[in-house]
């Protein structure tokens, strides 16, 4: 692995510059206020245990990705012109991935910003690998993980009752790798009966889906294409034919996961579709979210990169984003109009309010940097 730059020294230098600005003072004060318990800022210190911990965390994360077979090499560099750090990852077969972290994120978020950023990068690595047909994980490691998961699911792993089988199919059915050494059903005759019942249930669910959503929608999903779904509150989504994270929120690309428990796949898909179409707030309250950046309606996303929260549900996001955006507006003066916060997406704070920014846009030129 090529790891070419002293990560910590790089960010120390960035942060020292930032600490001298008024914006730094304002945002750091705000961060402490919002967190409720003031703590030492880690990047500026250098000597602190937290700094060493950060360096170790960064390097161990990279090393874990490499050991998992997710990346082949990584290098980190600073782009002075854009005032960002750039992490370049080589995933294999000439597929590379580049992620950046800004000085504003670092000055405001400290270690939590880096942790959150690396989590987002980790998610993106898997996504890009899948898109390019690269294996998701080191196969040997995946088998071990699968075994561990199943051991936790059934202990002891004997004969599963029907409900458990349905549950396990929902949890693991989308994986192509079949766990070994598990007696799904001891008796062949029982197995055949259950398989027949499963097929009948699947067919019945498909019929209900067609009856309620139409044959075109069914064919669409069967062809592996995402089905457009309009929420009752106006949100736009894509529904995918899979049991987990079957919904993509188009506004920000977030993957959302809610399930209808104990039903065949097409019942699950129809159920999620109907709930979105008729009771979108319930879906948003319930679903877990991975990735994404902006809430429907343009509400600022919780900037997890700022270090306030780690894994969040959407319910947290809505409340916290509103609170955060308001407090930011109050705390930052006009000189801070270019301040940026970074979560899984970006929010540009201006003197008049917060504005959503597509992470792919060149926000540096638009903010005069």
């Amino acid at each position, binding site marked *: 692995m090529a790891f070419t730059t002293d990560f910590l020294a790089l960010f120390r230098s960035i942060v020292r510059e930032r600490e001298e600005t008024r914006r730094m003072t304002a945002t750091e004060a705000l961060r402490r206020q919002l967190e409720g318990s003031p703590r030492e800022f880690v990047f500026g210190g250098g000597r602190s245990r937290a700094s060493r911990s950060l360096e170790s965390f960064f390097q161990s994360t990279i090393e874990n990705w490499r050991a998992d077979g997710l990346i082949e090499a990584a290098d980190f560099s600073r782009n002075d012109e854009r005032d960002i750090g750039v992490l370049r990852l080589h995933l294999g077969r000439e597929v590379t991935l580049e992620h950046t972290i800004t000085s504003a994120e670092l000055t405001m978020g400290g270690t939590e910003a880096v942790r959150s950023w690396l989590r987002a990068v980790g998610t993106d690595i898997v996504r890009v690998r899948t898109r390019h047909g690269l294996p998701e994980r080191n196969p040997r490691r995946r088998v071990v993980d699968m075994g561990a998961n199943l051991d936790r699911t059934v202990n002891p792993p004997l004969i599963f009752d*029907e*409900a458990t089988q*349905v549950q396990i199919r929902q949890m693991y059915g989308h994986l192509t790798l079949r766990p070994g050494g598990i007696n799904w059903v001891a008796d062949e005759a029982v197995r055949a009966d259950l398989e027949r*019942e499963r097929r*009948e*249930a*699947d*067919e*019945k*669910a498909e*019929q*209900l889906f067609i*009856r*309620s959503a*139409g044959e075109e929608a069914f064919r669409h999903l069967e062809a592996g294409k995402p089905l457009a779904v309009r929420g*009752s509150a106006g949100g736009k989504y894509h529904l995918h034919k899979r*049991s*987990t*994270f079957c919904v993509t929120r188009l506004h920000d690309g977030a993957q959302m*996961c*809610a*399930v*209808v*428990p*104990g*039903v*065949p796949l097409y*019942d699950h898909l*129809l*159920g*999620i579709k*109907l*709930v979105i*179409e*008729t*009771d979108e707030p*319930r*879906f948003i309250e*319930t*679903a*877990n979210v991975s990735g994404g950046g902006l809430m429907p309606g343009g509400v600022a996303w919780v900037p997890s990169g700022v270090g306030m929260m780690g894994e969040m*549900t959407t319910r947290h996001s809505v409340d916290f984003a509103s609170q955060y955006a308001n407090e930011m507006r109050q705390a930052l003066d006009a000189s801070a109009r270019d301040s940026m916060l970074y979560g899984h997406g970006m929010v540009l704070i201006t003197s008049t309010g917060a504005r959503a920014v597509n992470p792919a846009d060149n926000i540096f030129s638009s903010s005069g940097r």
Partner: protein
Amino acid sequence: MKITIRKMDKTGDTAVAFDLEKPEDLTAARAEFDALMKRNATVVAFPKAGAQGETVKRFEDLQEENVVVPAIVGG
């Protein structure tokens, strides 16, 4: 009016038909609906098969075809 309530379950769905003109069916249908509401199920009513559905919060709003989605959970 005759209504059908299709409850999603592990077999795909289980359909129960009620003739609301009959007092015993009306009572049974109302009890069924109340039980579903208590379990936080989502009931979506379709004026007819294939039509746009609407979520139902009151028994009186049930339509000819009604699909019951068990309470969803975060995945």
